[in-house]
């Protein structure tokens, strides 16, 4: 059964003339990892906000169509109920801090406090998160004193603390250095192994190709392309919809033009290495 289902969904922000999302329909199964890609202003964040219920609950505006989360209409979820079903990590780390907690340790527990998790369980979960997110040195610091990347890690950990079944990550690595980006993707891999359903909005297409099993390409508020990663990210049509292709794919497409060879186009460096090695090119 689909855990996320959008049927003929269109949306217009208040006071805007045009719809930012136009007749979008798709379904996401439990445990899948979807890469949500597209050019800036294409409507990726709006789709995330619709799935999280912030549209129209907080943003208002006109929403048409049907949105179902775990087979239940999104509007039938009670106050704060969706927070423990759909976790959302935002693009801007500076506004993701609750602003009421004095230490990172307490910040991690804030969401759990709100849903009434018993204290012992909270301590247990917070300790685990500190280990997973490497927050040992930051746990006693004030969240406002952290750098952008550190705040992003704390915000992500605070969201995971609620143990949501669906996780939306809106450009989680936009403020991070390469090493922290790698750490975040290790966590994404961990969440994937735990069977979480993940929607990942990201411009680092090589990482999308490596970690996501499905792609939703949004272009001008409409679905440009949808399907399995291998199918979508090896298709040059992605470029016409304002999307990007992984470096490896671009290289192999160019090679094909020159050599006329056929066969599977690799998505990752690892796959490319295997193909090239097989063909005798080291």
């Amino acid at each position: 059964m689909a855990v996320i289902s959008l049927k003929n969904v269109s949306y217009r922000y208040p006071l805007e003339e045009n719809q930012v999302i136009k007749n979008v329909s798709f379904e996401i199964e439990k445990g899948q990892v979807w890469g949500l890609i597209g050019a800036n202003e294409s409507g990726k964040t709006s789709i995330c906000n619709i799935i999280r219920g912030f549209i129209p609950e907080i943003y208002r505006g006109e929403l048409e169509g049907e949105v179902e989360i775990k087979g239940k209409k999104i509007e039938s979820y009670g106050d704060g109920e969706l927070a423990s079903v759909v976790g959302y990590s935002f693009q801007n780390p500076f506004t993701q801090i609750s602003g009421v907690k004095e230490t990172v340790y307490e910040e991690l527990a804030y969401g759990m406090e709100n849903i009434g998790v018993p204290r012992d369980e909270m301590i247990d979960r917070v300790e685990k998160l500190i280990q997973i997110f490497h927050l040992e040195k930051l746990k006693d610091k004030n969240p406002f004193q952290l750098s952008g990347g550190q705040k992003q890690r704390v915000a992500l950990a605070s969201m995971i603390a609620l143990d949501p079944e669906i996780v939306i990550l809106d450009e989680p690595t936009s403020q991070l250095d390469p090493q922290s980006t790698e750490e975040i993707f290790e966590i994404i891999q961990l969440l994937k192994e735990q069977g979480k359903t993940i929607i990942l909005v990201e411009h680092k297409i090589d990482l999308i190709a490596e970690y996501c099993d499905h792609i939703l390409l949004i272009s001008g508020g409409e679905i440009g392309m949808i399907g399995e990663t291998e199918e979508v990210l090896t298709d040059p049509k992605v470029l016409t919809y304002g999307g990007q292709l992984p470096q490896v794919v671009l290289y192999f497409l160019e090679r094909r033009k020159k050599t006329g060879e056929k066969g599977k186009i690799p998505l990752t460096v690892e796959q490319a290495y295997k193909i090239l090695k097989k063909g005798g090119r080291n």
Partner: protein
Amino acid sequence: MNSSIGKLYPSTKFAVMLLLVIFSIFTPGYVMQYLMFPLVVLISLCAGTGKQFLGTFFKSIFIIILFIFAIQVFIISNEDAQPIWGFLHFSQTGLNDSLSMTSKIVAISSLVICFFQVTNIKDITYALERSGVPKKVTFLISSTIQLIPQMSALSKTITDAQKSRGIETEGNMLIRAKAFVPMLGPLVLSSIQQTEERVLALESRAFSSRTKKTSIYEMKKKTADYILDILCIAGFIAYILWRVM
């Protein structure tokens, strides 16, 4: 906050403060009220906040008191006013009035300042939540306290941005005042702009959940708290009996 006084339960400290405020308001004269000041200094010293208390007191309340004395004793013209020079005169009635007025200000303000200096805001919000105060109210208290350093950091960023674009922000009072006004607009607008994102961040942490809130931070009343609570009640009853009889 790590002293024995700092570790007392907030409601206990509040009860003590309230009792002493009641004594200060309803006891005639000014001797007892002025005696509150050395008492509070002593409490602050025991709590390790003596320096902080004296600093706050002399930078704020003391100036107000001096101002009241000057106006009441030398400026306001009472019937017993004795001319000194020009518009200045000495009035015994003014002196008595200002002693009575300032003694209460000294007592109450010292007690309130001391209470907030020896009590962590986290402890106050925890105690309020435990006593059934809605979480929206406690959120408002905590976020307001946290907002001050945030706003000052934001104003520094704006000032730096303006400085890098050639606006003079350092120098005499006039230059600083001139730089302050154009900073207000972006400061207020950025703060408003951030509110929307903050709402989303809070909502993603189930802020609007109707489930009873729990807390990872824990604080319990100890024997000393119960003893002080009982002493406060006894002190209050004894004071009423003394005032009535």
